[in-house]
């Protein structure tokens, strides 16, 4: 791959340490190790990203074949602050490439950021946490080699993503310079977040915390960009966000190449910071200080459920705060929706496909409620898979060697995907309703109630997503990570399906497609009931599997 050319300190590995040069000894070997370990995951990330861009560009080409229809579509979108907040502005709607850059720009950049974060943390802090880096560090391996190798792997992955995305756009007959600019915008954003993750991997002591910090940064970047894009006068806020830079490259709309220097310079600075930090700390230690804990446990810490609460409460708190902030931001920009003139036929058509039916405001609120539902499903799957982490690490073994049945142990953890999800959706709904009510001046009480209904109605689908993950854990423990597959299918189908006009049979695969479109839409109890029933069945099967199978 192209990354190998860009990064070639490999020969150092075998030469005896030369003063000044041995800092990077072994980088080449570690780089190849990283690519070898990720030989499946990385190509999947890259192909999924490329595939999403490709399917978007081809379906836009089919849906809006002539320039006039594209311009009408773009004009409708661009006048609407709330849609700009979700997807960003359309800089040039006259070409299919321009529309694709609008639709996939933010989403693709977030995808590249997540891929890069997980990649870098997996090969740095997670390795260190598991003690494998100690084994590697005892070899003729420089202090900065693991970090450099992880960043080199991230460079490779992002270069591949940029190249394939550009190739896909070219294949769809789009302008070559625009295709290159769009691919590079995604790749450079990914690289920025890779470098950011390299820094969080130095700060936090666990891979989970390092991923969490970097993930929070991606979320913050998304919110900043949303504020910047949502209306007039706030545009400068978007420039604070790396996701905003990715937009401002304006692929297919002038191709401002110099903007690419921003993420690259940011990545260089963050890399320098991470490299300085890694040499300053002990192996296995973070930079955040250690505090001693209590010498004895509080009386309440006396059951498997209490332990599960203790382990899961921190993440739940973080997620709740994040969703409340996101709810407030997206509720607050709802004002832009009412400014939109409703007589734009194509626009109304697209909006109807994205979400609800009765009125553009309701369609917007309903579509953000769906987004909150899907984000909550991420939390739910993660909370379920915490059980697997406990089992794989061996920590579940002494607990289950106590007088604790497996079901009781599982129940303690499952409280979180069951009720924690309700808390998250309530936080998002209440904050969104409050902000929307304040922004529109239509009274907050009714708005809060409406949005609470809209977010809480997502619960059955969120639960079913969690139950699918639980089934993976209970029945096919070796493939428990496949719990994410269910989530991935549901999200792809519900998120991209409508705009790609996928057949109804495919859309029906996702429980999110069957939910009432609230606020505004009619509420049918039947889908909610059967989704809940399916959840109960799946959960029962998963727990039966968990009771019968070998643990550890």
């Amino acid at each position: 791959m192209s990354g190998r050319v860009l990064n070639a300190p490999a020969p150092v590995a075998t030469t005896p340490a030369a003063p000044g040069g041995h800092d990077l000894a072994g980088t080449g070997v570690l780089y190849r190790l990283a690519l070898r370990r990720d030989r499946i995951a990385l190509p999947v990330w890259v192909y999924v990203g490329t595939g999403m861009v490709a399917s978007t560009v081809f379906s836009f080409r089919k849906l809006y074949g002539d320039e006039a229809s594209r311009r009408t579509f773009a004009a409708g979108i661009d006048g609407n602050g709330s849609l700009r907040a979700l997807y960003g502005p359309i800089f040039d709607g006259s070409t299919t490439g321009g529309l694709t850059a609008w639709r996939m720009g933010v989403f693709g950049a977030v995808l590249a950021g997540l891929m890069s974060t997980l990649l870098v943390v997996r090969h740095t802090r997670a390795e260190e946490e598991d003690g494998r880096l100690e084994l590697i560090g005892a070899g003729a391996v420089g202090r900065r080699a693991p970090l450099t190798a992880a960043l080199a792997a991230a460079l490779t992955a992002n270069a591949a993503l940029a190249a394939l995305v550009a190739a896909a756009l070219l294949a769809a007959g789009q302008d070559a310079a625009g295709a290159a600019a769009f691919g590079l915008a995604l790749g450079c954003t990914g690289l920025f977040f890779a470098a950011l993750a390299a820094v969080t991997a130095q700060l936090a002591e666990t891979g989970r915390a390092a991923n969490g910090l970097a993930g929070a940064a991606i979320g913050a970047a998304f919110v900043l960009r949303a504020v910047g894009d949502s209306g007039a006068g706030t545009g400068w806020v978007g420039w604070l966000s790396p996701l905003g830079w990715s937009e401002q490259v304006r692929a297919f709309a002038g191709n401002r190449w110099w903007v690419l220097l921003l993420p690259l310079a940011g990545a260089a600075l963050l890399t320098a910071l991470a490299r300085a930090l890694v040499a300053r700390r002990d192996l296995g230690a973070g930079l955040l200080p250690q505090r001693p804990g209590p010498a004895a446990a509080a009386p309440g810490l006396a059951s498997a459920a209490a332990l599960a609460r203790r382990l899961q409460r921190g993440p739940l708190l973080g997620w709740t705060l994040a969703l409340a902030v996101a709810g407030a931001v997206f509720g607050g920009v709802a004002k832009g929706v009412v400014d939109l003139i409703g007589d734009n036929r194509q626009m109304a058509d697209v909006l109807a496909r994205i979400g609800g039916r009765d009125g553009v405001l309701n369609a917007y609120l309903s579509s953000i409620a769906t987004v909150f539902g899907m984000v909550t499903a991420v939390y739910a799957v993660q909370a379920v898979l915490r059980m697997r982490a406990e089992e794989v690490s061996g920590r579940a073994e002494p607990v289950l060697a106590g007088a604790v049945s497996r079901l009781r142990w599982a129940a303690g953890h499952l409280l979180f995907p069951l009720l924690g999800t309700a808390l998250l959706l309530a936080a998002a709904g209440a904050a969104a309703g409050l902000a929307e009510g304040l922004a529109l001046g239509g009274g907050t009480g009714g708005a809060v109630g409406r949005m609470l209904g809209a977010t809480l109605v997502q619960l059955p689908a969120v639960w079913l997503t969690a139950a699918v993950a639980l089934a993976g854990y209970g029945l096919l423990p070796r493939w428990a990570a496949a719990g994410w597959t269910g989530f991935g299918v549901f999200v792809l189908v519900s998120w991209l399906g409508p705009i790609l006009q996928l057949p109804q049979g495919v859309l029906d695969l996702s429980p999110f497609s069957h939910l009432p479109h609230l606020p505004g839409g009619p509420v049918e109890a039947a889908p909610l009931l059967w989704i809940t029933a399916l959840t109960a069945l799946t959960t029962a099967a998963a727990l039966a599997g968990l009771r019968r199978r070998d643990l550890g």
Partner: protein
Amino acid sequence: MTTAISVSGLVKTFGRTRALDGLDLTVEQGEVHGFLGPNGSGKSTTIRVLLGLLRADSGTAALLGGDPWRDAVPLHRRLAYVPGDVTLWRNLSGGEAIDLLGRLRGGLDPARRAALLERFELDPTKKGRTYSKGNRQKVALVAAFSSDVDLLILDEPTSGLDPLMEEVFRECVVEARDRGATVLLSSHILSEVEALCDRVSIIRAGRTVETGTLADLRHLTRTSIDAELAGPPPRPDYVHDLAVDGHRLRCQVDTDRLGTLLTELNAVGVRTLASRPPTLEELFLRHYENGGGSEDGSGGGADDGNGGGSEGGPGGEPTAAVVR
């Protein structure tokens, strides 16, 4: 009820690997039972079956009169388990982990907990992630020994402990036995097993190859003889590793032929005689290095170097163990 653990014909396969292949194990109530075997021989798998974490493919297992799979919860109230590789929760202090593990099996004795923390020199305020391997092990040991349980299942519990702490561990095992507890001690440290265990089971490739008291096991094996004689030594054909140097004879003899050899030596005239019973290490090596056919001790060739080399090392302690 006098049998704490009774396992027979236990089979457990993982895919194509046969981890347990008809394993038998009997542990009487109140004894300290050594559970020996090389890496991967099935010790931990057996223990996980006994804890109800794994379900055996065939064979029977009974624990304190119950079924380890079906009655896991009530049985676990009466036992404490220490894994060989303790992992702790990163954001829980050692003290919290001790209390939690104790309470999960029905509570622990606070006075004994405090005394054990003192004896093991463990700081309970540190967070799980900052403990060294030995200290993590101590957390699990303190939690186990603080509880009043009928059965202690210890899976290589002293890995990572320093010799002083190893000594504290031995005292704790003896105290637990004096309280009437049964102990199943899986270990690699043979001196530990020799010092503590009433009976020993040796397993290999998922099967039990020896079980009995140390004296029983010694009886099945060879004694080393080093004799200075008055005249030219005899060259009997039933001894092993015979070395003759002038009037000096060194060899190993199967324990049931010892009398015959001594009579023969006596006929020549004995000036000095040193005889040493086999160490557990020699027993162990014999079972592990000889491949399958170890029952009658016919393939002793590989033991030579080890038998000689171990003379200086564990030689002192086994003698003490024999007295015990």
